[in-house]
């Protein structure tokens, strides 16, 4: 179970049974840490906290695990504070941790605006902050750890165009159901993908931007694109959670096998669907590794060494051809499963 961190207004989304069980297990673990924040503190290391918008979302929980694992690896004491997507709680947490005089903060804020307030407070207290994945409307941070959306999308596009060429659809077009393009990650994903299309000589059949991220919305967009562009041979879904809506639309249009589907981000089911060819491929972020990178950045800072202001964590472009090879990495860095 993996959830995308990009939806800042996200609510708890319907899950498959498998996902629901995993979520319960993760939540129980997260809840235990939240109620005894200092239980894992180490006596001789630095004291750091991970302020997360909502640990109940798998993506953040996987990232917490990366943070936690890396902090422990360095002998630091680390605690997680989940705001449960409430700005007030987030502010309360930052006030609290600042009162506690922590040495560093990894921040995955509720939104980029709230991040600015947190950063401001932390700066006021002289505490270094590393932001993980969600950007901030402030640059008062030590380093920003983000996925390399452009490169990931580019690689994913190459997988798709390659598959389409193999099927002899060199002149076919690709429809895009995109996340909102006002976001930086949306723009980077489109740009990387379009680069791959251009290099392959294919063209975009059109783009529909998601608004409410509902099943119906994705289903409708997919339908419209297929109807409007009979020559369209692939749909690229910039998110992962509504892949089923797209599949449903293709199936309903009797174009299963005629219209390919590729997604960004990952769902546990993809480990099955990609090998089966239902999905041509998926661009998978690595939250676990991002958590590790964040702690590493603090560590570097504490050592007195310069820290890059921004660090990009690679996105894994997974296809039926490399999934077997990448599976260990996917399990740990994407799905946060213990090795």
């Amino acid at each position, binding site marked *: 179970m993996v959830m995308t961190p990009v939806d800042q207004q996200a609510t708890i989304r319907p899950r498959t049974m498998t996902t629901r069980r995993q979520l319960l297990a993760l939540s129980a673990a997260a809840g235990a840490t939240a109620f005894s924040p200092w239980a894992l503190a180490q006596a001789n290391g630095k004291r750091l906290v991970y302020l997360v918008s909502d640990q109940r979302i798998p993506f953040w929980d996987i990232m917490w695990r990366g943070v936690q694992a890396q902090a422990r690896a360095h002998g630091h004491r680390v605690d997680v504070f989940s705001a449960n997507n409430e700005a007030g709680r987030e502010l309360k947490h930052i*006030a609290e941790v600042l009162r506690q005089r922590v040495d560093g903060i990894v921040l995955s804020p509720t939104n980029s605006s709230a991040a600015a307030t947190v950063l401001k407070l932390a700066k006021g207290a002289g505490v270094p902050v590393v932001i993980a994945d969600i950007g901030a409307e402030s640059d008062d941070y030590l380093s920003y750890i983000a996925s390399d959306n452009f490169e990931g999308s580019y690689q994913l596009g190459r997988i798709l165009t390659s598959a389409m060429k193999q099927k002899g659809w060199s002149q076919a077009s690709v429809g895009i159901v995109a996340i909102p393009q006002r976001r930086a990650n949306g723009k980077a994903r489109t740009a990387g993908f379009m680069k791959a299309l251009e290099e392959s000589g294919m063209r975009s059949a059109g783009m529909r931007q998601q608004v409410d991220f509902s099943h119906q919305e994705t289903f409708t967009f997919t339908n419209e694109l297929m109807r409007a562009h009979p020559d369209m041979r692939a749909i690229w879904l910039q998110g992962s959670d509504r892949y089923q809506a797209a599949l449903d639309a293709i199936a309903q249009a009797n174009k299963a096998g005629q219209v390919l589907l590729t997604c960004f981000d990952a769902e546990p089911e993809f480990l099955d669907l990609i090998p089966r060819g239902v999905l041509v491929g998926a661009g998978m972020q690595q939250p676990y590794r991002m958590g590790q990178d964040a702690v590493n950045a603090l560590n570097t800072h504490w050592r007195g060494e310069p820290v890059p202001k921004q660090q990009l964590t690679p996105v894994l472009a997974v296809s039926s051809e490399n999934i077997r090879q990448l599976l260990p990495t996917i399990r740990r860095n994407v799905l946060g499963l213990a090795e």
Partner: protein
Amino acid sequence: VSHRRSLYNLLAVLISTVVLLVLGTHALWMEGSHRNRVEKAVRAEAEANLASLSRNLTPFMEAYAVHEYEKLLANEIELRPHFAIIVSDKRMARVLGQEEFLTGKVVTQGEVRDFDPNDEAIQQRLRASLHAGQSAIVSAEGETLGSVAVYTDDTVLRQQLRTILLSEGISTLAVALAMIGMLLALIHRVVVRPLRDVADAIGQTDADGIPRAPVPMLSYHEVGRLSEATNAMLAEIRSTRDKLKQSAEVFEHANDGIMITDADAHVLDVNAAFTRITGYSRAEVLGRTPSLLRSGRHDQAFYQAMRADLREKGVWNGEIWNRRKDGVVFPEMLTISAVRDESGRIQRYVALFADITQLKNQQSELEHIAHYDALTHLPNRVLLADRLKQAMQSAERRGTRVAVLFLDLDNFKTVNDQHGHEAGDELLLQLAERMGHALRQGDTIARLGGDEFVAVLQDLQNQEDIQPYAERLLQAAQLPVCLGPLELRVSASVGVALYPQSEPIDPDQLLRQADQAMYQAKQSGKNRYHVFDADQDRATRGLHESVERIREALNNHEFELFYQPKVNMRTGKVLGAEALIRWHHPQRGLLSPGTFLPIISGHALNIDIGRWVLKTALAQMDAWRKQGARFQISVNIEAIHLQQPQFVAELREAIGVHAGLAPGELELEVLETAALEDVAQVSALMRASQQLGVSFSLDDFGTGYSSLTYLKRLPAEVLKIDQSFVRDMLDDPDDLAILAGVLGLAQTFGRKAIAEGVETKAHVELLLRIGCDLGQGYAIARPMPAEQLLEWVANWRPDPAWALCQRVSPLGQAVLIATVEHNAWMTQLRRYLQVQEQHLPELDHERCRFSQWLEQSGAETYRHQPAIGRIALLHKEIHDRAHQMLRVHREGDTAGALVLLQELQGLKDELVEQMHDLTIRIDSQA
């Protein structure tokens, strides 16, 4: 001119200063106004912004979106003119466990920065801010989330004001410069340039410093008036200059002397005539006072009166005696005028005078001719009448008696006949002198003519006092007179009349009584005197009317007015008529006034008669006026009537009844010889009457001793020359000379003269030639009843020859008088031959009066006239022929004498004709 300040520059400075001051004041006021407005706007905006912020911040604060609302604050502070926006977030404070959570934005050095509560500089600015507003932020549920405060300092205000003032200043300066420029251009065009043009025109002057050309007419009303006024002034100056030149010409060339002094009588200037008359040069009198000329003949009171007149009336005129440089005292007719300035203060005096020495001499000569006998230089009949009148008045006052002794020489004609006129004249001269010595000083001895003398003795107490004087006179007359070897002897008969008598009597009557008594003395055997017996005379006067009878006649309406026309003989114009009273006596028929008026002379009835005459004449004038005829009617007024206290009131009443009377239509004739005792009173009466429109004439002018006094002091418009002069003028050169003299006086004094007693055409022509155009007498018309007058006026035409009679000059008059002299000589000669009762005229052609004229005036004045030689020859021939004729006559050849007389008449006519030609030639050359 250049050192004077420029009006234009002054105006430029003034206008610039005023405009800049006004606009500067306006700008300051505007600055204050803008400041208030901007300040108010800032406050209003702050308040509005605060309210808006309060609303907009609420959701962010509810959502703990600190950064969001900080962005909002940043936007606000960039958009709004605030210095700081600070939010106090209670929820954040609670979340952060702080007492207060303050955040916000401030603008420092033009940049928006985060608010730092610990920044003391910011805190100071907050405290010093111009405006601070705060608003609570309350959630929809009513929870107070915090507050927002907006601070505005004066930076914005200053910026806005600076911007406003800069633009205002630039526009104000531009407007000021434009205004100044326009005003100066306008002033230059409308005021300065026209004034300069006017000044240029005024500056171009002629030799007298007067501008040559008129100043240009300026367009605008106000300055246009300057042009008009200047041009009017220039025209006035030119006119004044011309007048001054004329005045200077007149001043310099006037015949009259002119002297100008300052207010203190110091001489400022005199003209050439002054120098000619007084002998003093201009340099000699400048700075001196007119007292230099004082003769000493006038006392201080005279000069004080003169100064008083000048002070009060501003003018004095009259006769004054002054002294020339050579010491000679001379009379002058002087007019002094005071010249005052605008405030009425005397600035100078202008004296204008004429040397009237000649006039005085003429007057003196005339007076002498008029009042003294030419041979004996004793008073003549005229002066005698005056002396007698005065003696009578004196006697009345003093209670004494006056005696009139009428003396006629016995057998004087024999002396003349036997020894010639020269001897007779010498006899008369010596007797006159003796008789003068026989009387007291103060008594009068006069010669009436021929061998008639009259003595007036005054201050006698009774009739007996006469005797010694009468006898002394008889003695003086009978003493022999030695003329060389010749001893002549005559005697005298004397008639005496005394005054006063039991009845009123006038001088003429008294004289007639004396004459009558003298006749008695002659009748009684000559060489004696006889006293007139008044009582006996009255008893014998059977025919004479009594006063009562005359009164009765008045009551019975027996009187009537006749009218004798007065005309201009030269033009034929009828001037008017004199009303003359007539008495329709039931028994004696129509009586003339001479038969009854003397009876009531000095009597109150005279006044009643006078009133009747006046009333009747006025009524008649009314009647004529209704018939469309208007002319002047003269009425004789007796002195006793005129001097009645109510005279003027009565006259006013009488005139008032006849409302249509025009001024001058009624003329009152006042007898010049009448008893005008109080000249000042009569003068006042006459002036008062003149106010009523009545005019005056002096009747019988020339017969009274005081003629000149009357002429000077009585405001009569007309002089009526006594008919005695007119009647005898053809034959009596003395009368003609008097007449001419009177005409000259009338002209000198600005009066009209009319001759009465014009009896013949010869009289008319001679009168016209000597310049007397107005006349009244039988030659024109006899007095006529009123009903005939209008018809006469309608029908009368003057003799056409009268209009051709040329008026002669004074020189011509002298020729005329000489001609009359010769006529008189010829008449006397003829009478001598015909009736042998007259004196023989002077036969020596070098001793007769004509020869005196011929040798003196004729030879001197007319020597260049060719006729004078012929006249002299004719004159000598006439005398020669006269000698021859007398010789023939004495030889008894009467017929031969008459033939010679005819020849003599022919020669005389030729002489008269030559004299006439001489007159014409003289006048044509004059």
